[in-house]
């Protein structure tokens, strides 16, 4: 029972919810950049929401199945086809032994997720199957997928026993994105003018962005006395301002600590949206009150729970 990678795409890795509990020792949490898309892919194939899936960046994989299975694709639209015939995202898709899945470049958005029923049979390292590229840890042999890799599947499921599941396809990531932020932890390191620039101008995502950080170009953010601080913790979504003055949104593979001031952090309910921006996407930042961020998080979690019940019990 396996899936053979015929073409890996530019950056395809196994990711789950992330590796927690060792950030204090310097391990990045990693995990899916777009956790909502990752969880929905799993739910569509009957998995627990946090199982390992394939995260594909900019363009997808081509792969062949040697057994019957059920798969689902979520996140960015990469024009997937099964044996040459287009297949939809956000629904369960039966594949048969010998079938080929072909994917192309992302039409909108940046990252797509592929889940298979029962998940991939990969070793759990420090509580997670997420690939940590810097350490060569987890995932499939600690690295990105390559041509010829044979990913072992935990089970084969004949499509006939699996009722079809589908979800509404969410809106694609737009060309101009508004990300909601809470100021801090070091917003006081910046001048009024710097903060005004951050909140009123438009930033553009650059090609240097990766799973560690989304690097932006645009108006420089002026600091009072430089941006060096004694290294402190970097939370997911933190917006770091290095000496260049242009922001970096720190994401899943970020360093756990760092010595640059952080002006703000993207709220947790907007991290999945941040994960889908691509080079050229324009970003605006707006502040929201902390209570609003928590309300939005509650809404996000509630929606996920509802989806989980829908998928599991058909209600």
């Amino acid at each position, binding site marked *: 029972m396996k899936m053979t990678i015929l073409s890996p795409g530019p950056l395809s890795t196994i990711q789950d919810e992330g590796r927690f509990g060792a950030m204090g020792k310097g391990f990045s949490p990693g995990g899916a950049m777009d956790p909502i898309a990752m969880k929905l892919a799993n739910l569509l194939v009957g998995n627990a929401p946090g199982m390992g899936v394939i995260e594909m960046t900019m363009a997808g994989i081509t792969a062949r199945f040697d057994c019957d299975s059920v798969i689902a694709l979520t996140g960015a639209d990469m024009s997937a086809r099964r044996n040459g015939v287009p297949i939809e995202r956000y629904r369960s898709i039966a594949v048969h032994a010998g079938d080929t899945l072909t994917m192309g470049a992302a039409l909108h958005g940046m990252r797509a997720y592929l889940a298979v029923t029962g998940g991939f049979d990969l070793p759990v390292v*420090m509580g997670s199957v997420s690939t940590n590229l810097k350490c060569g840890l987890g995932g499939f042999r600690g690295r990105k997928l390559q041509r010829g890799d044979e990913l072992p599947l935990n089970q084969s499921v004949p499509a006939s026993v699996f009722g079809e599941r589908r979800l509404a396809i969410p809106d694609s990531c737009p060309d101009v994105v508004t990300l909601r*932020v809470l100021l801090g932890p070091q917003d006081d390191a910046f001048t009024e003018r710097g903060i005004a620039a951050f909140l009123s101008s438009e930033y553009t995502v650059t090609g240097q962005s990766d799973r560690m950080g989304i690097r932006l170009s645009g108006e420089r953010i002026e600091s009072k006395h430089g941006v060096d601080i004694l*290294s402190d913790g970097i939370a*997911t979504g933190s917006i770091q301002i290095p000496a260049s003055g242009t922001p970096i949104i720190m994401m899943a593979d970020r360093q756990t600590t760092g010595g640059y001031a952080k002006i703000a952090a993207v709220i947790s309910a907007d991290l999945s949206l941040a994960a889908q921006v691509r080079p050229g996407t324009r970003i605006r930042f707006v502040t929201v009150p902390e209570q609003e961020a*928590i309300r939005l998080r509650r809404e996000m979690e509630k929606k996920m729970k509802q989806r989980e019940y829908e998928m599991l019990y058909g209600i």
Partner: protein
Amino acid sequence: MEQVSFLTCGDCAVTVAFPQEIREETNRRIRFLAARIQSAGIHGVQETVPTFCSLTVYYDPLVLPRKKLEHHILRLLGSYRDNASAQKRVFRIPVCYEGDFAPDMEDVCRLTGLTRQQVIALHSSVDYLIYMLGFLPGFPYLGGMDPRLEAPRLECPRTRIPPGAVGIGGKQTGIYPLASPGGWRLIGRTPAVLYDPHRENPIVYEAGDYIRFCPITPEEFQRLVESGETDIREETV
């Protein structure tokens, strides 16, 4: 007690900031807080990251409101009693300061005006406090280096530093647990395996422990590698 402040890091983390200075006493207070948060098993707290003068606490605001978390933290800090004479855990790390293991030794001697023997003696005579781990898994930010050993970082950082390399960067010294780019001047290398993801404990030391570098010869380095004696020794003093 000195005041702490709570800095917002999005809606799921808060940084407890202590006075912004590198002091052992402050660092002890931070580690005390991290340990107490863990042992208290506060529902909704996920994990903590200690640094020089702060502790970042990750939590779920839907389970634990921030005000309540802050209240817990202040209560735990209130029970702090400094104990500088407590036992310390020291990890002895064998380091070969010679030949190819020390590509920047000559430069460090030139920059510091010290002989090779003096550099080795000064560098290996201190129990260095691990203030924090970051940058890479298990990369220790050490305090206590003799100021006579200060040497500026390389103008052009290396693209690959091998695992186990020991270096000096400005006022700091440290050791690379895994291969990485880096700009520190390399004065030695350990055969010890500092990072092994398949060990039950991939990084054995933690913030608050001490590291002592013990000079070995190239022959000893070779012997340790060949015999597989690459664990680091720990002692309590």
